[in-house]
Structures are given as C-alpha cells and as structure tokens.
C-alpha cells in the first residue's frame, strides 16, 4: 500500500465539472502547487458537508490526499464565498473570465503564489468595486505585468520617444505597446487609441486601486478598452477565451 500523502493549502476553485454519480472534479489554484485537479466525492449530494465550501470561485482552506489520477479532497473550509458573483450576471461572467485567464498562465504543481494573490484580490474587487468592467481592465493590467507582457504605454515602441497624451497614438498588440500614429503607418496591426483610453490605461497600470476604483468611464470608452485589450490577449494567447463571449453579451445589456 502506498503511503497516503496529505497536504493542506488555501485554494481557489477555478473550474469544476460533474464526475460520476455524485462527485465533482475541481480545478484548484493553490499558492505553492499551482493548478491542482482534485476530486470531491459526493459533492453533488444535497447533504454533502463539503459542497457549500467548494463552490465555483470560492476561496477555501482544503485538505488534499494525493491520489493516482487526481488528488482527493478530504476537507474544505470556506474562507471567502464571493457572494455577489452568484447574484450579478456581469460580475459572475467576469469571474469566469478571470479564472479562465489565470488558468492560461498557472503552472501545474509549481509555485504560483503571486498569481494566487492576484486572483484572490481580483475576485474581491469584482464583488466590491462599483464598475466591474473597469475592474476587469485593472486585473488584466496586473496579470500582464506579472506574466511579462506589461504593455509599454508611455513611450513609442518604435522610436523610443516619450509619447505625451496630446500626440495621436496607436496600439500594436504585436509590438506590445503604443506608438505615434505617424510611426504606426508602417505597423500592420496597429489600431488607433483615443487619448482618453490611453490615459485610463496609464492610470490602471501605475496607480493604486484607491485611485482607479473611483473612476466611472462611459460605455463608449469601455467598448474601446475592451477592443484593445482583447486584441492584445488574442495576440498573446493565440486564441479567444470562451468566457469573453458571455462577458461581452452581458455587458452590452
């Protein structure tokens, strides 16, 4: 008999699917072991003592036993349920989007404490901040920085010259930043970016949450930011995220 190895860890439930008669298969993000797939036996039964503690997006303290194919979740204690994500369709859709994004970068069974902290903070923001779409853009900006894709927003990526907000600018996903529209003439994937959008992205990249959380951009500005950031993600991930379609649909009302 192999020795049963147990480990106890904080975890966020990124994804889960029904498994067998009454089990759930969970994809968890943990600080020290990255992505962990664990089976929660009997979690679909209404009398399950674990079920409420391992809902989607929940942050919990879990005890896992290492198994052959999957780890087995043996105990779970809820730390943060993120109640508002259950009740608000836009915030809930964005939570799916956050988790799907994080899943793209999380390593399996390796340290990912910075990613864990970012997602934990992002999900709390999603519950509290007045503008959930702005929250998404701020979350993306932090994730891009963390994963080494921090976009250059202050200097022209072609000439290296500082780019004041008064100069008409463009954004190139391929070059990973802004350039003057003049320089952009020779850049195939550059798209114009308005002064308002650039200024807001700069705030999101450099300012503390207390600053950007006060802002309430209008719908047109949100649309522009969404187009720019989606083009950048598409370039980085080379595919569209599944949850983005739903976010877009819900945000459009």
């Amino acid at each position, binding site marked *: 008999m192999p020795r049963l190895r147990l480990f106890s860890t904080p975890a966020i439930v*990124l*994804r889960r*699917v*029904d498994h*067998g*008669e009454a089990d759930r298969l969970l994809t968890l993000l943990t600080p020290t072991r990255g992505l962990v797939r664990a089976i929660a036996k009997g979690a679909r039964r*209404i*009398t399950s*003592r674990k*079920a*409420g*503690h391992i*809902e*989607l*997006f929940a942050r919990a303290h879990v005890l896992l036993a290492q198994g052959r194919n999957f780890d087995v979740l043996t105990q779970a204690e*809820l730390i943060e*349920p993120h*109640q508002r*994500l*259950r*009740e*608000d*369709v836009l915030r*809930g*859709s964005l939570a*799916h*989007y956050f*988790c*799907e994004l994080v899943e793209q970068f999380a390593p399996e069974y390796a340290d990912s404490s910075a990613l864990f902290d970012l997602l934990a903070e992002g999900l709390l923001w999603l519950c509290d901040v007045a503008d959930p779409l702005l929250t998404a853009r701020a979350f993306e900006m932090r994730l891009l920085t963390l994963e080494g894709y921090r976009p250059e927003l202050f200097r022209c990526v072609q000439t290296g010259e500082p780019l004041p907000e008064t100069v008409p600018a463009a954004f190139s996903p391929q070059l990973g930043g802004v350039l003057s529209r003049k320089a952009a003439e020779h850049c195939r994937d550059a798209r114009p970016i308005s002064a308002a959008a650039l200024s807001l992205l700069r705030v999101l990249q450099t300012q503390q949450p207390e600053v950007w959380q006060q802002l309430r951009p209008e719908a047109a500005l949100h649309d522009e930011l969404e187009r720019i950031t989606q083009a950048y993600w598409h370039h980085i991930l080379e595919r569209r995220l*599944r*949850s983005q*379609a*739903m*976010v877009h*649909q*819900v945000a459009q009302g």
Partner: protein
Amino acid sequence: MRLPGIGPKSASRLAYYLLRAPEAVSLELAQALQELKASTRLCSVCFNITETDPCPICSDPSRDQSVVCVVEEPLDVAAIERAKAYRGVYHVLHGVLSPINGVGPDDLKINELVARIRRAQQTSTPIREVILATNPTVEGEMTAAFLQRKLSGLSVTLTRLARGLPVGGDLEYADEITLSRALEGRQPF
C-alpha cells in the same frame, strides 16, 4: 465514445461482462438502446424527455398551466415529481450557463422559454408565475439571475426555491452562505 459517470475502469468491467455473456444479452441491449433513441424526443412545449409530444405533464388537464417551474435537467423534473407536491408544469433548460466551459444563453432553452411565455400571454391561460428552480450553485444562481433579466417586463411573477439547511444536515457543518440564507428565510414557528 464516452458516457457520463463511466470511467475507464467501469467501461472495461462492462466490456468484459458483455464479452462473456451470451450473445442474446448484447442483442437485447442494442435493441433497447435503439428503441430508446427512436421512441424518445423532447417535448415541444417544456423540452422534457418524452415518448409523446406534448409530454404527459404538459397535456394533463389537471395540471396548472399558469405556473412554470424552470429546471436544469430532465432528472430534476423526475425529482420534483417524486415529491408529489407540485401541480404546475415545467420548462427544462438542458444545462446552466457556464462561460468558462463555453456554454452561453443560446446553448440553453432560454429563448424558447421567453417565446413560450409570450405565446401564453395571447391565450386565455397566461403564465403568471415562473419558479426558477435551478440548482443553488454558482452556475445555477447565475442562470437564474440571467433569466430574471431576460424575463423582467413580461409581467410574470418570478420566484426561487427556498434555500436553507438540508434535512438531516448538521448546523455545525453548514457553510456560511447556507447558514445566512437559512436565517434570512426563517419562518414563524
């Protein structure tokens, strides 16, 4: 081919069993599967699985057609019917919203529900109440919240199944969402 609930181990057990059983067993099974596919369909009103269209529940004159209980799966209809406490009709969504798994509103029978309510409003038996009986999970509640947005302005009363402690459960082991809802939903004793 994959069947829900059947892992590689169960699949090989079933295969061994069928290989060793008399040929008649396999033939019988094959025939039963064929008949299942040929004789069942979705009810064109409520989208439950049925052999007749409309299904026995939709065509039962003693059922209250003005109350529609919206559930995720056909198995949920069976569960509520077993309780013998509900006299209205159903609407089966065939899933829940799950953006991360690529399941959006158009993949569920949501537009069909809106159309059904609109149709009924033109008749002498309009739908007055829609019970959102999706599961009390994140996905189920998000689906209910989405339906609430979709159905607002259709002049139907929306209700949700009461949520609280499961029978046979133990307070000590309840999570905080269940507990806070059980407290909110407390009733005179």
